[in-house]
């Protein structure tokens, strides 16, 4: 881990009508750092993650991701930026039900002008790392929860992102499977040097992180 910031959010606020969900939050993630954002349900963790990852524009404040300020970037430019710099892991996996495991992994590459063989080669490599080489052609409906999440992690890594955003990645899994997923994330962090910002409400999971950020009622508590 080096100390250069891969992600920083300054004085971030998000209002939905009169309701202020995130209130003047400043936060950063250093390159290769594993940061856990913890807090009770409804405290604004997921909204903050959306603001930091460029899925949503803040009402106030600015976000700098991989050295680029993304606060006022257009939606399409943000999408392109996400494709090259960011990986997402969601609680409910969000795999495309009509695509096979390898196609789901290669999904971010579909709009990229490369051959299908190259897409498949890169997806296969990642699925093998996730020990899913034998499930390449299976549809999500044929995979277990843990397998689905490993496919989702492989998808998040397909473009070699500098940072992974994980929103309750073990929330839909039993504890054993959840532990296995956490092991993968830790391995990515320690061995591959990928920065991770993970949202969770389970304090136990946060223990493995380099740093813990607590949120309470839209603000950073500690």
């Amino acid at each position: 881990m080096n100390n250069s910031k891969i992600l920083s959010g300054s004085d971030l606020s998000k209002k939905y009508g009169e309701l202020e969900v995130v209130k003047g939050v400043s936060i950063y993630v250093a390159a290769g750092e594993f940061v856990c954002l913890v807090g009770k349900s409804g405290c604004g963790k997921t909204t903050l993650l959306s603001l930091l990852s460029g899925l949503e524009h803040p009402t106030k404040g600015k976000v700098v991701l991989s050295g680029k300020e993304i606060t006022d970037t257009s939606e399409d430019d943000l999408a392109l930026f996400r494709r090259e710099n960011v990986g997402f892991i969601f609680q409910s996996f969000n795999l495309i039900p009509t695509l096979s495991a390898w196609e789901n992994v290669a999904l971010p590459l579909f709009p990229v002008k490369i051959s299908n063989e190259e897409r498949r080669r890169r997806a296969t490599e990642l699925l093998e790392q996730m020990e899913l080489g034998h499930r390449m052609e299976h549809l999500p409906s044929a995979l277990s929860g843990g397998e689905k999440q490993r496919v989702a992690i492989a998808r998040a890594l397909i473009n070699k992102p500098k940072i992974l955003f994980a929103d309750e990645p073990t929330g839909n899994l039993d504890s054993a499977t959840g532990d296995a997923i956490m092991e993968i994330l830790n391995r990515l962090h320690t061995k591959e040097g990928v920065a991770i910002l993970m949202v969770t409400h389970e304090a136990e999971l946060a223990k493995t992180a380099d740093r813990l950020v607590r949120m309470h009622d839209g603000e950073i508590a500690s």
Partner: protein
Amino acid sequence: MNVGYLVRELYYQKRRTLTAILGLSIGIALLVILNALSMAYRQAAHAPLKEIGADITVQRPGDVPKDLAGAVFPCSAVTIRKEEVEKIRSLPGIKGMGKAVLLWVFDTKQAWIVLGIEQNNTIGPAVLRSAVAEGKFLEDGKSESLVEMSYARQFGIKVGDTVSVNGSRFPVVGLLDASQAAKIAVANLYLSLADAEGIAASSKNLQSVSPFALGDVNLLFIKADQEKITDLAASLKGILGKKATVATPDSFLKLLGSLFALSDKFTLAASLIAIIVAVLIAFKTMAGNIAERAREIGVLKAVGWTNRNVVAQLLAESIIQCFLAGLLGLLIALVVTFGLSFMKVNIPIPWDMAPNPHFLPGGGDQIYKTLRLPVHIPWTLASFAVLLSIVIGGLTGALLGRHVAKIKPSEVLRHE
């Protein structure tokens, strides 16, 4: 646009795909069938005139002498003077003309329907040349006759006999089977135009109500530019008087009385409705599709698909679905039109165009030209239908692109 993703989406979401394809295909099929039917009725309406090589027939109604003896004109076809014929010939849009003289001849022993024809004119009753069943057709410059076969059988007339008509004698050179011939301009006895003119000109009874000179006629068959038929019909009435009977394909179409034969406006309106219904079905299905796939679209955007990437993918899906719907619609239309092609259509021949004296037994019966509905789907219509389906797919996809842009990944991906 990713083809594999597109194919899998259409294949695995069978219910959604089939609903979209079936819905639109019915609209397209309706559009094709309606237009094919409209064209078929138009074509059918051409049949009675086409059979005598004409686009228009013209005659002028008048009086019949009180005493029905010797040669008279039917009340539906009295003299059209030579000068009027020349005036008509010079009208713009006239491509050719055939002349004939139709007479009722009441001799003491029998009555004749006599038709004087131009033997070598391809426009008019001379097309009956192909209907000679025995003997030969009338030769130019010769005073000879052809007798209709059933009439000849009834009166025991044979080729080689001589028939006497209004005091003139004509050798019978052939028998004509008119059963398959046109229903207009048919007769018992066919003579050269000059001979028939001679009979008419020498009939005092006829001259008393409808003065007739050599060179005059009472039936005209006109070949015309298709686009000018309506204008010509009006001009002909201008020359011959408002009461003149001008038969055109349109006038037969009106006699058919079918909804499809009523007007182009009906077909246009019905086609428009079919298209609008098809577009609405396609739009509704695609809109439902996008609403159903909001989460999927959110995922695509989150992993780096731009709005344009997402719209291109959905647009391609929409176009392929609509293209398939177009093909299916065409197939449905082909099956339906094949079934409809067995339908018989009876085209009523107006009484004033029927040559039979209405006061004789059976003379007042309605005559029909019966034919199988000539329904088919021309390539132009088929291509238009498929092209229209693709355009509908493209428009629907493009319109729904705006909805895609409104889908925010952060909102649709927020965990449960």
